[in-house]
């Protein structure tokens, strides 16, 4: 090694590295906050569905309908920011060469994903808050402060499982084909996990395979949070954590190979 090559490399302080993460997250959040085409559907779909099916229609059927469906549509609502926020935006960044540029730049390796994660967590918070308000003031669902807080934390953290699934989908599809692929996973999974119709009214076979879908486990946890659970919460937590880790590992492997 010669003299110049070995001269002292400039060092990033911990504060500077932290700032890089903050700036990346900030840019990612701003980028999508200014994109009504992403923001509005993500917020409005679950809330309008809940308003129609959970509050207006379910109210006439059973007193607990609005409460039960709060968990279903709340879960449906946090799936979108994870799946679309990661899947579609990763696919677009890959197609547009933005990911390549970021890999060439000295961006701290985790900052890109942490940025998108912050975006998804923020969107999940907004959607969950919206659903809680609709349930309380529209559906007259009585929740204790503890229940509401547990529900909020469950749904918001639950988005992480869908972030990692979205990430995996984003490595499989490129650009324009990504929304289609994501919908192909999003909508059937919502249906098969009993988010649109309760599993109890579904065929036995669909009930039996429900534990295969992460959305099913998040729905069960959300139900527990608002006092309608069937127990066994830790199984669902472990299942969600396993899904998250599994998807993440597969996605990381694909990203390392294909960039």
């Amino acid at each position: 090694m010669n003299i110049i090559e070995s001269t002292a490399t400039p060092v990033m302080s911990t504060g500077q590295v932290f700032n890089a993460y903050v700036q990346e997250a900030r840019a990612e959040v701003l980028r999508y906050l200014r994109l009504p085409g992403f923001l509005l559907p993500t917020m409005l779909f679950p809330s309008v569905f809940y308003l129609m099916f959970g509050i207006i229609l379910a109210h006439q059927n059973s007193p607990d309908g609005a409460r039960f469906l709060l968990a279903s549509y709340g879960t449906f609502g946090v799936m979108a920011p994870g799946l679309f926020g990661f899947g579609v935006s990763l696919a677009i960044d890959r197609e547009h060469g933005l990911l390549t540029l970021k890999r060439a730049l000295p961006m701290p390796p985790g900052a890109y994903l942490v940025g998108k994660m912050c975006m998804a967590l923020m969107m999940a918070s907004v959607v969950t808050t919206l659903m809680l308000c609709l349930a309380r003031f529209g559906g007259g669902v009585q929740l204790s402060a503890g229940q509401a807080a547990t529900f909020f934390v469950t749904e918001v953290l639950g988005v992480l499982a869908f972030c990692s699934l979205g990430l995996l989908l984003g490595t499989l599809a490129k650009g324009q084909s990504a929304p289609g692929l994501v919908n192909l996973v999003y909508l059937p999974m919502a249906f098969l996990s009993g988010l649109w119709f309760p599993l109890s009214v579904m065929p036995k076979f669909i009930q039996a395979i429900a534990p295969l879908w992460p959305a099913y486990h998040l729905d069960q946890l959300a139900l527990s949070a608002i006092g309608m659970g069937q127990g066994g919460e830790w199984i669902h937590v472990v299942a969600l954590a396993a899904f998250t880790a599994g998807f993440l590992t597969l996605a990381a492997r694909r990203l390392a190979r294909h960039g």
Partner: protein
Amino acid sequence: MSQDTCIARLEGVHKRYGAVTALDGINLTIHRGELLALLGPNGAGKTTSISLLLGLHRADQGTVSLFGKDPQDIEARRRIGVMLQSANLPPTLKVRELIRVTASYYPNPRSVAECATIAGITDLLDRRYVALSGGQQRRVQFAMALAGNPELLFLDEPTVGLDLSARQALWASIRSLVASGSSVVLTTHYLEEAEALADRVCVIARGRVISEGTVDALRAHVSVRRIRCLTSVPAETIAAWPEVDTASQQQGHMVIATQHAEAVVRRLLAIDADLAELEVQRAGLAEAFTEITRDSEAANAAQEAA
């Protein structure tokens, strides 16, 4: 130039993509303070060379080093700035935000204002990226490339798609950066860009450096010179002379390409006493480039035939 000033190098690097050989044992060194232009036809291996030096891909064989480290080491990349050929930036972000997030990756970044001044985009800082023209977007990408106050800048086809005035403005910015001590690696297929900027030119074809040197040295490779004049001697007559490669009328002038300019001029003057506006020029980089690539293709064909 001495070994001690080398800041990046490719040494005997091979890289294949499937059945395509992108790099075939290329050797390339980049020295401190110089502007190196990588010149070559599309698919010659320019972009692959750059992407190896940026750590985007790994070489199949050979050594790639950036400031004495593996380019995949983030510490090495903290000393470089990058402008890629095909990067669409987030359309909804403002120019200021794009520069700020890029600067945050570096230990001693330039301020946003300083980047904007050098790249000539101070009036665009609060505009959204999507609202800019192609030329303005390239200048924003250039501002981002220098945001980290890098010692070495990689500019991959920086002026593709720019009009002449935008191109010259970007050239001026690049020159002022080099004057302040940065090194630049530039890929281009515009010869006048290399001619206008480069201290050193490497011509790459089929994954190898086939010629390397200053612009002048490269031009001197080519023995052809061009004679222009006004003469009544018909082009067919001149073209028939043994010393002459080609002769033709272009916009009223006779243009003659030859390797023996003195002999041809002497003969012309002897038969045409009214000859006027005589000019003799060494061929431009464009001719040099054509000749070098043709020579190496001929050599290659001979090798394959053997």
